[in-house]
């Protein structure tokens, strides 16, 4: 059954292909490109979304003004945003990263805004009594309370960003995991696709267990039930 064999490669075949692609093929540069795009979009979306979420959570009138737009942003199809940005800005890194950020920011804002609404007024009184500067107040009082929300936004955000970066790479880019998978698609190269997918999942697991989990343990160790 040569046909079945070609479409359902064994794990060993995938592993061999993975090794070959990493050693002699374009896997590592592709992975690097994708991670750079996902990483920069992630950082920009988190910083922007957290800042806007704090502002909208604190200022009711701004929240009323923009909550409709936020809803639009949450439900805007990712692919439409990407196409529009590709048309406006060309098939550039900037267009790709901007499209990903636009897709992600509303989710971060919504999560952080909920966190800000749950901030305890007690600690604001303490900050006022201690005459904390705005910066120290952010560091000592506001961010620690928001940290569980920020971590939740980071985790859901990272998974969303991985996925849409790949889709956008298929749509138009000169490299990256999505781009390579779309070429493999044209050749029905299922072994290559699975090898790329495996490499990608390994990276995701490394980020989760090497970065997010230790960070979470460290930042939330004050809680009775550290995650």
């Amino acid at each position, binding site marked *: 059954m040569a046909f079945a064999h070609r479409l359902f490669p064994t794990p060993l075949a995938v592993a061999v292909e993975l090794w070959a692609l990493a050693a002699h093929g374009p896997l590592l540069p592709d992975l690097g490109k994708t991670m750079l795009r996902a990483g920069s979009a992630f950082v920009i979306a988190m910083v922007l979304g957290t800042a806007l979420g704090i502002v909208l959570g604190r200022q009711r009138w701004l929240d009323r003004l923009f909550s409709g737009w936020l809803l639009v942003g949450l439900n805007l199809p990712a692919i439409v945003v990407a196409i529009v940005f590709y048309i406006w800005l060309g098939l550039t890194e900037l267009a790709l990263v901007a499209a990903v950020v636009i897709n992600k920011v509303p989710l971060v804002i919504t999560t952080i805004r909920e966190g800000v609404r749950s901030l305890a007024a007690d600690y604001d009184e303490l900050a006022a*009594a*201690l005459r904390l500067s705005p910066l120290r107040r952010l560091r000592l009082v506001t961010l620690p309370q928001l940290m569980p929300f920020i971590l939740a936004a980071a985790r859901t955000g990272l998974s969303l960003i991985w996925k849409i970066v790949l889709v956008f790479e298929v749509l138009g880019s000169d490299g990256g995991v999505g781009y390579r998978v779309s070429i493999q698609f044209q050749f029905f190269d299922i072994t290559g696709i699975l090898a790329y997918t495996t490499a990608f999942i390994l990276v995701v697991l490394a980020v989760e267990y090497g970065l997010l989990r230790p960070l979470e343990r460290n930042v939330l160790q*004050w809680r009775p039930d550290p995650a």
Partner: protein
Amino acid sequence: MAPGPGLTLSIAEKRFPGPTPPLFADLRLDIAPGSVTALFGPSGIGKSTLLRLIAGIDRDFAGSIAIDGIPAHQAPPPGFVFQDPRLLPWRTARDNIRAAAPAISAEAADAALARVGLATQATAWPRMLSGGMQRRVALARAFATNARLLLLDEPFISLDAALVDDLHQLLADIIATSGATVIFASHGPQDVARLATRVITLAGRPAAIAQDLTFPLPPAQRDGATIAAYASQLATGVPHAALD
């Protein structure tokens, strides 16, 4: 050390939203530098609110509060002890102290903890400390900045008697050595009779000064009988016969 600041309170009106009558109206009060003043009265009378106004936490009132001539919210930060410990749960005991006093070293923060009997708890998270221990960290935090004005909101409420005794002693020591101006809210006659040099009794709504007592004997020289006499004087408003 030089005595703490003098205060001049002139509150034209303080009210909370809603149809209720104002909490304070035309309340005037001068507090002498280095004095230990107790705000005495039942709960709900406005003691905590008055302390928040003095601390500059609550600025929503008509009138003025001057601390050595400076408006309350611009004055140097007071040492403030809330009714609950109000520690930052995401910082260790030591770091809670350093949050209030960023200039002091870790060693100085530990020394401040040692002074309240918590030398071994510097790296403990607040959730690991008992309620009484948290209260002591809050006191250490208020004292760590060497604030010239100490504001304490029911610092001894819901603590067991032995601990209250310890904290009385600690507070009396700190007051005696620092010369800070202290204002504390309490509805316990014993606390007031032990620590205060002056007692302002608040009553009614809007709250007015129902009684303004000065205890002649300095706190350090009071024995059990004097404290009991002061406490009963507070309850009746009449100087006790034993003191004559």
